[in-house]
């Protein structure tokens, strides 16, 4: 397990080189797994009963928990964007759990966290203008127009802080685990790493997923409600 994000292919699109990195390929793998799981659940949904049991319980609990959490944070007015954050939640959590298998988490690449943070930023601006119209723009000049640069920086800092927080946390786990595998003799690389993976990938991964999603939801809510 190395620190570098490998490049697998290079595409030339209109004379511009695009690297197909390990992150992108791992993202496709995660997407494929999540979509297959979703299709399995969709097929199973036909045989779902009124009194849930087994897998149905887990699916219902997961969807209901997330929906209550997202709707509770966003409010009923913005509840129609919860599916996007369900994807963000599922993707970041799956990425963290992906590391358990010794594969590099897509979230340990700044490009991924930047993409997710930019999406939240765009959503935040869109919701701000959609629900507040001109008042949202006015908030950039409050309490006095002289504060406009500060307010603008404050807004632009949101996607930067979101992306770097997740990236830094995920990368730190990757670095620690890489160092452990590189610096320790082979006999301590059996058993003990599972504990480190449990902490850095599962616990920190779940925690960072929750933090990223709730902060994004609050940014959007604040923009729409300000």
């Amino acid at each position, binding site marked *: 397990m190395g620190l570098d994000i490998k*490049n697998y292919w290079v*595409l030339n699109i209109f004379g511009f080189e695009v*690297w197909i990195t390990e992150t992108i390929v791992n993202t496709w793998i995660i997407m494929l797994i999540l979509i297959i799981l979703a299709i399995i659940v969709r097929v199973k949904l036909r045989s779902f009963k009124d009194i849930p049991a087994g897998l149905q319980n887990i699916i*219902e609990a997961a969807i209901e928990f997330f*929906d209550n959490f997202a709707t509770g944070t966003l409010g009923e007015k913005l509840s129609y964007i919860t599916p996007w954050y369900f994807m963000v939640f599922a993707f970041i959590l799956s990425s963290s759990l992906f590391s358990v298998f010794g594969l590099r988490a897509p979230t340990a690449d700044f490009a991924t966290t930047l*993409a*997710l943070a930019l999406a939240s930023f765009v959503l935040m601006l869109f919701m701000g203008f959609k629900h507040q119209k001109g008042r949202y723009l006015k908030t950039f000049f409050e309490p006095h127009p002289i504060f406009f640069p500060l307010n603008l920086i404050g807004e632009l800092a949101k996607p930067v802080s979101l992306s770097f927080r997740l990236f830094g946390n995920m990368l730190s786990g990757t670095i620690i685990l890489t160092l452990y595998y590189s610096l320790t003799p082979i006999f301590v690389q059996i058993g003990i790493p599972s504990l480190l993976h449990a902490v850095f990938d599962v616990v920190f991964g779940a925690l960072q997923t929750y933090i990223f999603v709730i902060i994004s939801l609050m940014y959007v809510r604040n923009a729409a409600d300000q």
Partner: protein
Amino acid sequence: MNITALLAQAVPEGRVFGLDSQTLASAGIQLLNAIILAVALTFILYKPVKQFLQNRADKIKGKMDETDSAMEKANQLIAEYENKLKEIDIEGNKIIEDARRKAAEESKAIVEGARMEAQEIKRRTQESINEERRRFKEESRLYIIEVASLMAEKIIAKTIDDETQDKLFEEALAQLEHAPWQG
């Protein structure tokens, strides 16, 4: 589109972090991936499961409403039947009271009829007795008269003349008419 995959040896070395156009390009691809994943998860998983949960909640609510409505109907029926039972009780009591009153009237009429009949029978019997008595009295008087006449005839034939005989006969007849009859 002019898309060309370059050979593996032309692929640049990996890196941990960079702030350049490649990061932006990767971010763009990741954003596209995220959108595709969001669409897929939303339409394959999130919305159908939410719809299922909503349908079930509606179904449960419908059943609860149905139960409430059935309970309300049942309560109404109970109240209705209780009222009917009360009415039936009242009507029953009325019928019993009427029957009792009619029975009392009828019994009174029967007793009255019987009394009248008894009186009639008594009256008729009395009349019959009186008739019988009168008839007997008449027959007895005629018989006695006859006997007395015979006796007197015999006595008188021996002792008195015709004039005395007629006088005595008249006196005897007058006495017989005023004498009380026994039996």
